[in-house]
């Protein structure tokens, strides 16, 4: 929350996105609530991490924020103004967002040179002489500017992704959304890109929304973290608090499932995995959507959906029993 009363750079208010899905051979359409009431905010120069697994709606959320799709309900405000305002005003606001996608090869036109692709956002803004900006940007992301004349397939995966980042930053956007932007890279390259993003944020002051299923990657660059499950936010806090004390049982499960390079620790854990599969987003469980897999679930959880509440210090969690679990987990950790 902005404590000094200024408007956050980005405000997302109760965002919803629904799809009508017709299964072949079925009688009627079913409603897929991909994003079901998500609210968040982002300050300038900050990175918000969004972590979740399949069906949580994070990719849809990414597309909504960037303005690739319109919401079914709710608002997205940049500098306090609706990005879906009609006409030129709305378009100008949507242009303040850029996106980096998961598949580096697929997100660049194979028939154009890397330089041309990187220059695109500037050209869309009406700038004519893009050569210098391209060169500057490529150097900034750690690429040899000579690569501008090559085609994407002539670059390695890591180089392609750096070029995608250059393209996203060249028109000086306010917010860059990364949708699993490092997932397809080798580990050493993932770490390189994460470091690069940290450096770039320091140099350019761009805000990021970093979406990933990899909790470790999200924690590496985020100031604040949001955990999503089946279209909803189940926990939100700053990353340090999240690292020391995840509250929601799902967050804890995510954290436990993120294996550390420490054989003794991993061996000693035993079988702490969550049971069951992720429910279908078309048929979410009643009450708390996580109750089907939650070790703490009771009848209350089945009947009543917990709302996001402040568990102290701005750490939000949507669970009836969050603190009790954390205390139990802490005792267990000490016992280990």
């Amino acid at each position, binding site marked *: 929350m902005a404590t000094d009363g200024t408007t956050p750079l980005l405000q997302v208010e109760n965002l919803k996105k629904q799809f009508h899905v017709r*299964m*072949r*051979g*079925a009688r009627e359409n079913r409603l897929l609530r991909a994003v079901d009431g998500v609210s968040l905010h982002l300050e300038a120069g900050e990175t918000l991490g969004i972590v979740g697994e399949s069906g949580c709606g994070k990719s849809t959320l990414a597309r909504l924020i960037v303005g690739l799709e319109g919401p079914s309900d709710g608002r997205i405000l940049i500098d306090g103004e609706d990005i879906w305002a009609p006409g030129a005003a709305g378009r100008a606001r949507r242009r303040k967002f850029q996106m980096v996608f998961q598949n580096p090869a697929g997100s660049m036109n194979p028939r154009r040179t890397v330089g041309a692709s990187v220059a695109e956002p500037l050209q869309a803004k009406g700038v004519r002489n893009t050569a210098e900006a391209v060169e500057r940007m490529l150097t900034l992301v750690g690429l040899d500017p000579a690569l501008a004349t090559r085609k994407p397939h002539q670059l390695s995966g890591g180089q392609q992704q750096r070029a995608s980042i250059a393209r996203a930053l060249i028109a000086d956007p306010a917010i860059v959304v990364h949708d699993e932007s490092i997932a397809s890279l080798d580990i050493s390259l993932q770490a390189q890109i994460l470091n690069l993003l940290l450096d770039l944020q320091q140099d350019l002051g761009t805000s990021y929304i970093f979406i990933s299923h990899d909790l470790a990657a999200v924690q590496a660059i985020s100031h604040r973290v949001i955990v999503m499950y089946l279209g909803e936010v189940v926990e939100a806090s700053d990353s340090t608090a999240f690292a020391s004390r995840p509250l929601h049982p799902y967050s804890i499960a995510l954290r436990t499932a993120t294996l550390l390079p420490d054989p003794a620790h991993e061996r000693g854990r035993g079988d702490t995995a969550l049971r069951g599969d992720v429910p279908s987003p078309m048929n979410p469980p009643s009450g708390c959507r996580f109750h089907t897999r939650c070790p703490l679930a009771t009848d209350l959880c089945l009947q009543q959906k917990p709302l996001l509440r402040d568990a102290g210090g701005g750490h939000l969690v949507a669970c009836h029993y969050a603190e009790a679990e954390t205390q139990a987990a802490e005792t267990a950790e000490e016992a280990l």
Partner: protein
Amino acid sequence: MFRMIVTRLIGVFFVLLAVSALVFAFGALIPGDLTSVIVGQEGATEEQFEAVRQKLGLDKPLPVQYVNWLVNALQGDFGTSPITGRTVATDLMQQIPVSIELALLTLLVSTVIGLPAGVIAAVHANKRLDVLIRMSLLFTFSVPIFVIGILLLLVGSRWAPDLFRVSYTPWGEDPVMHIRSMAMPLLTIAFPITAMTMQMTRGAMLEVLHNPYIVTARAVGVREKRIQYLHALRNALPPIVTFIGFQLGILLGGLIVVEQIFSLPGLGRGMLEAINTRDYPMVTATTLVFATAFVIINALVDMLYPLLDPRQRGR
């Protein structure tokens, strides 16, 4: 599933209705009509002309004519041919079986040869066997049907007149003669169709063979031939089956040519003759039969998909 079939059949019905209307309309667009055929081109007085027209019901407005015609057609009465004097239905009943037999035999031969040829070509892709299969079949595909037909006719009548009996003999009369009379036409039309089936199968198989589940089957120890002809081919079937439906259009056109060259008394030749002699009732009726066959077969192929691809069955 049942619901889908019913929906599809209703769709087919409406398509056929539209087709029949179109066919009828085209017939009416042809300059001149039945009257001039019956009465002859010259020497008829206006009154005679009008009298015949009235008798034929051709003075009524077009939609009324259409409904009359349709009602009769649905009862099996397509009218009488002014040229032959026989009812159109009689001729149809004699011609349809011949064409059906030729079409079915072609389908059978082209599938029995084309499918395995395609599988082998895909498995040995870009190696000698593949090149051989493709070149030989595609060569026949590039030569027009009527050229192949006439060539075979020449070869057959010149070098093996005893082996290939060129005039048609019905099965009932003499089975052996029948086979000998159908052999050449079958060969003519089967070549290009087989080539196309082979090509289609090869393409579909190549895609399927690269899938990870084929590697799984191999890793589990399934025999290679079984993998090719069961695990893989089964997944390649949808595009191949689509193609067979599509093939029909080509087949129908080929039938007309082949029946003409080899003088087979089938629907194709019947249609050509009817067109040449301006036998309107016959033209309309045969066009309708062809169109119906096409629509029904494509609808059948369409309904086959859920059977072939479990993913399309709906949970």
